[in-house]
């Protein structure tokens, strides 16, 4: 399995704070990689390198290489950043649908990208809602406000919205931490389904969730990548004592 994303000695500073201390890691294509670690360990900062979200934070400095399909995304032209973000979808902790109808939430990205063909948009909305395992629940109320959906449905809608513009990578930052166990289960099953088509990177505080959904796991601590490997190995016999202590709940 080849690497979709690769970072080589990636450092990130917020002002004087050294948030990522030389991370070298390959993210496998069409697999789920979970990033775990205690709060402030750098896992979300690392995730946000991949779509240059950290650029939006003032006084941020980045060094090292972040390669996406072999191209350093920190050396692309400013005009190409939009296309990078089209290719790298993102889902956040709290469902954040737009104050629009269910249909329009998913169609939004397509319209912004200049697609006007109504039947094409309709087809894409249906396909994406199906991919996000939401179609059956919303097909009869596509014109209702997205806010009428439950939290779990809203989050799947946000996933559909991210998938509509056909990214190849999906970044998920704590996608189920605001949801009840049933909705969480649905999101996890969805992640398991989607990995055949997308490269997924998920940040989670919930170690059991990392175990359930991911193929590979990286454990971050104090801005460093302590251990990375197959999730089965990390959760049954980690190499580093720090990883063992964290996953067994003995610190962090």
């Amino acid at each position, binding site marked *: 399995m080849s690497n979709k994303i690769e970072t080589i000695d990636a450092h990130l500073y917020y002002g004087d704070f050294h948030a990522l201390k030389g991370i070298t890691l390959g993210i496998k294509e069409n697999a789920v990689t979970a990033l775990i670690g205690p709060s402030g360990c750098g896992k979300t900062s690392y995730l946000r390198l991949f779509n240059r979200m950290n650029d939006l934070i003032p006084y941020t400095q980045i060094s090292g290489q972040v390669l996406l399909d072999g191209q350093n995304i920190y050396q692309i032209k400013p005009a190409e950043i939009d296309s990078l973000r089209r290719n790298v979808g993102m889902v956040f902790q709290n469902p954040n649908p737009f104050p629009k109808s269910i249909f329009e939430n998913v169609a939004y990205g397509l319209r912004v990208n200049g697609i006007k063909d109504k039947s094409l948009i309709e087809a894409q909305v249906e396909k994406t809602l199906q991919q996000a395992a939401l179609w059956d629940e919303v097909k009869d109320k596509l014109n209702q406000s997205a806010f009428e959906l439950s939290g779990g449905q809203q989050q799947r809608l946000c996933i559909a919205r991210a998938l509509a513009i056909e990214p190849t990578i999906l970044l998920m930052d704590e996608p189920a931490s605001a949801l009840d166990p049933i909705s969480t*289960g649905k999101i996890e099953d969805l992640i398991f389904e989607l990995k055949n088509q997308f490269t997924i990177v998920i940040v989670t505080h919930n170690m059991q969730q990392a175990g*359930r959904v991911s193929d590979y796991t990286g454990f971050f601590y104090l801005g460093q990548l302590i251990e990375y490997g197959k*999730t*089965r190995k990390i959760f*049954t016999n980690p190499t580093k004592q720090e990883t063992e202590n964290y996953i067994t709940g003995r610190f962090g």
Partner: protein
Amino acid sequence: MTHLDTELKILKADLIEMWQLVVNQLEKGMKALTNFDRDLAEEVMENEKRVNSFELKVDKDCENIFALFQPVASDLRLVLVALKIGNNLERIGDIAASVADFVLEADTDFNKAILEHTKILEMYAVANEMIADALEAFDQEDTRLARTIFKRDKILDDIDNKALDRVLECIQNYPDQARNSLLVMSMMRKLERVGDQSKNLAEEIIFYFEAKVLKHKKKKKKEGDE
């Protein structure tokens, strides 16, 4: 199907495949004894490695499921039961290999009269049937069939209790088969253990499907507990 369902399905499939292999091992061992087929006996010895690797695979599957999915209720029972069944099957596999080894130790064909008089073939057939029925009970979720296994263990015990006397009679009647008679005695001791292992399998099957613990319960309670 959830991710956990997929993993449990794989675990079940591995267990059933291991079970079929063990049933096959016992059947081949019986044929090797009946036909004094040394090649077949050697095949059984060789296949024992496959049984062992299956046990390791089932152990690893279970370890991963515990670590990654924290199963509960019937999912948890399946994983607990799979660990124990894997272990029992491995022991039955060892017994099949031991019997094959005894066949190889014989220097002449086993006299048919000895096999008949000691009732080893009857014992073998009952043991095979118990393991095969336990497999069917597990596969078909048939706890009624699983309960019939407890009764059949008595047949093995009865034959085994008379084994010593019958073997002695064989030695007196066929002195040239004294060595083979003793080998038959050793095989019967091993086969009696298959009955105990089958009972363990039946207990695990009932625990999995009904969440009832039958271990250390009286025999009547086990057979009739609906």
